[in-house]
């Protein structure tokens, strides 16, 4: 097996989509790893009602941990100049405003950019939706970070979803452990591949139809 990018490298590639002045929301899992590597001037929002907060508390600065300062994943963060707090009605108006870039995890993305985040295999009766449907619907741009195939080696980029839908036609960019793929009106387009990988190798792991960009290139990290 060729080497795939690890989760931290995928997160770092996702971070390169963000620039000074951007506002973003980071989902659970790989997206959360973006937080440690954000460029200056990028502001992070969390669903539970905060924007512009600082780095997470670590065991090195545990005395800064404040029970009132947690993010959407219930991790403790440090304050930062210019941050603000608001109620969750305001938070979800913000999430739906088209002003945030949403970086989400994913189980599957379809050819048309449909996104599935939740499995029902375990929690058949009670899906854990959280804010994912709002985040996928309301963002200025939706970036999905996920492995290219699942634990059984099956493609996660599919013709149409087999997992339950989170939001239809919402994904703009997919960053996997082997490729960067844009979702366009003409389907999925391969923009970048991981070092050492070929287009054909990536296609063989992809169920969805995959076009190749004229300027396809090796992922820069």
């Amino acid at each position, binding site marked *: 097996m060729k080497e795939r990018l690890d989760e931290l490298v995928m997160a770092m590639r996702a971070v390169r989509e963000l620039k000074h002045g951007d506002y973003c929301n980071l989902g659970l899992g790989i997206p959360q790893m973006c937080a440690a590597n954000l460029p200056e001037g990028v502001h992070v929002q*969390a669903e*539970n009602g905060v924007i512009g907060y600082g780095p997470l508390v670590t065991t090195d600065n545990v005395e800064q941990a404040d*029970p*009132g300062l*947690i993010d959407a994943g219930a991790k403790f963060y440090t304050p930062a100049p210019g941050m603000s707090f608001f109620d*969750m*009605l305001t938070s979800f108006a913000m999430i739906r405003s088209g002003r945030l870039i949403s970086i989400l995890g994913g189980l599957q993305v379809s050819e048309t950019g449909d996104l599935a985040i939740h499995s029902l295999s375990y929690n058949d009766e009670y899906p854990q*939706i959280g804010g994912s449907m709002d985040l996928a619907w309301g963002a200025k741009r939706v970036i999905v970070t996920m492995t290219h195939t699942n634990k059984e080696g099956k493609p996660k980029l599919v013709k149409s979803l087999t997992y339950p839908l989170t939001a239809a036609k919402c994904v703009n960019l997919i960053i996997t452990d082997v490729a960067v793929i844009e979702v366009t009106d003409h389907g999925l387009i391969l923009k970048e591949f991981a070092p050492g990988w070929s287009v054909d190798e990536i296609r063989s792991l992809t169920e969805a139809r995959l076009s190749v960009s004229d300027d396809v290139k090796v992922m820069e990290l």
Partner: protein
Amino acid sequence: MTVKICSAAEAISVVKDNDHVASHMWGLCGTPGHLYRALAATNVKNLTLYIENFLPGPPGTVEWGFPDPTMLLSHLKKIVTPYLGGRAYSRTGMQADFLGDLIKSGKLETEATTHGVFMERLHAGAMGLGGFYSPIGIGTIIATGKETRVIDGKEYIFETPIRPDVGLIKAAKADKLGNLVYHGSARAANPVIAMASKMNIVEVDEIVEPGELDPECIVTPGIYVDYLVKIPEGDIAGAKNLKELVKLAVALVNK
């Protein structure tokens, strides 16, 4: 109505069988644990609970005794929540299918929603609306069984207001008129629940005189507050204890 300042037990005694109760829950943060314990100690039955997240607290907190909404299970008929924590149960060593068994046996009803739709449904309750057309969840399990409508070429789902009988609210500080301020992202859904509920019981760490809170920074005006409970010194749900608990939690949560 004048705000009544009293104990959690006295305040919580207004909750009746079959009431609809709403509360925030997000780990340790903004969660009215002191009121959960008082409610768990009653014999009230068949409550419907509207809650942000229904799961135990983050790793460690259950063992440390921080009250979480799962202690209310035997009092509940139905849970309406965007996030029902089966997996968290297994993580903390509790039986992973505990909730599933209750649900499958028909002893517990559940209703799924999203955080954003949940907030808007509470807001609709606060504004006296009859319902609204929501853009979220088209074609998903959220839409199942609901009316849909196309407006200006886009599809929407009809969602109904939530108007709880009682809101259980966690704030940082109150003045004696019931004006509330929160602390950090512990604000969260608390102000939204307070505005939607017909009656509110609030737990706070501190009660001050009117005029001590900046009128520009009061988030929930006292008109929404019916019962005000000061968390006793030394209570596990109090700010001082939370601060200690958090130091222990960082190693487990922020890994």
